[in-house]
C-alpha cells in the first residue's frame, strides 16, 4: 500500500529537517563561544542531506548523511580586555554567519511544514479510502 509509504517518506524528511534546525540552533547559540570542547573557538556545523531509496526503489526518503564543520575563516575581534585575546589584543570568534543561519532556520521550518502537510494529505486520502462501499 503505497500511501502508507508517504508517512515514511515525509517522516524521514521531518526528522532530517528537525536535525537541521537543531544544528542551526546550536550555531546561533554558540555565535559568541570563544571556547568549545577542544579549547578552540566554536566552528559552525552544517548538515548534509542525502536521498535514501525506499523498499520499492522508486521513491526516496531523506537522511542526514553527515554533519560537517564549516571551514570558513573565523571572525576576529579587537578586545584586549578579553582573557582569550592574543598578544596583539585580538580575539578569535566563531565563524558562525548569523544571516546564513537565520535563512537556514526559515528554510528548515518551511520544509518541515511542507512535509507535515504531505503527511496530512496522505492521511485524509487513506481515511477516505477506508470508506469505500459505505453508504
Amino acid at each position, binding site marked *: 500500500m503505497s500511501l502508507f*509509504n508517504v508517512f515514511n517518506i515525509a517522516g524521514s524528511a521531518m526528522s532530517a529537517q528537525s536535525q537541521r534546525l537543531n544544528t542551526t540552533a546550536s550555531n546561533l547559540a554558540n555565535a559568541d563561544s570563544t571556547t568549545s570542547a577542544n579549547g578552540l573557538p566554536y566552528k559552525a556545523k552544517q548538515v548534509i*542531506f542525502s536521498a535514501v531509496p525506499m523498499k520499492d*526503489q*522508486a*521513491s*526516496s*526518503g*531523506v537522511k542526514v548523511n553527515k554533519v560537517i564543520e564549516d571551514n570558513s575563516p573565523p571572525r576576529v575581534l579587537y578586545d584586549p580586555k578579553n582573557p582569550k585575546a592574543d598578544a596583539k589584543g585580538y580575539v578569535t570568534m566563531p565563524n558562525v554567519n548569523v544571516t546564513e543561519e537565520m535563512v537556514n532556520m526559515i528554510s528548515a521550518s518551511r*520544509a518541515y511544514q511542507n512535509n507535515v502537510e504531505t503527511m496530512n494529505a*496522505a492521511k485524509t486520502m487513506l481515511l477516505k479510502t477506508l470508506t469505500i462501499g459505505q453508504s
Partner: protein
Amino acid sequence: MDKLDAAFNFHQSALRLRSERQELLASNIANADTPNYKARDIDFNAALKGAMAGNSSLSLTTSKTSAEHLNGTNQGGPATGGADAPLFRPIIQGAVDGNTVDMDVERNQFTDNAIRYEASLIMLNGTIKKMLTAITGQ
C-alpha cells in the same frame, strides 16, 4: 474476468496508480533540500493505458515535453530501478546544488493528484452502489 471485476477494474487501477504517484510526489517534496536529487514523476495517462491493456506490472515512463527527448533508462539517479521505473522531470529552473525539485510544481501536482484520487474514490463508490442496486433489485 467476471463482470463485477470488469466494472471495478478501471477505478481500481486508477487508484493504485494515483497512490503510487502520490508517493513519488511526496518523495520529491521530502527531498527538496537534498543536493543532486532529481525530481521524478510518472506519465499517468500512459501508465493507466498500460494498466488497462493488461500490463500487470507497472510500466511507468516519464512525460516528454519534446519529441527530441531521449527515452532515458534511469541512470545516475538516487534510486535506480529497472527499465520500467519512473524517470526524471524536465528541469524548469536549475539550482546551484543540482537539485531539480520545483516546489510550486510539486505542491500543485500533489494537490491535483490527491483531488483526482478522491474523485476516483467517489466514482468507485457510485459503481459499487449501482452494483448493489442491481444485486438487491430494489
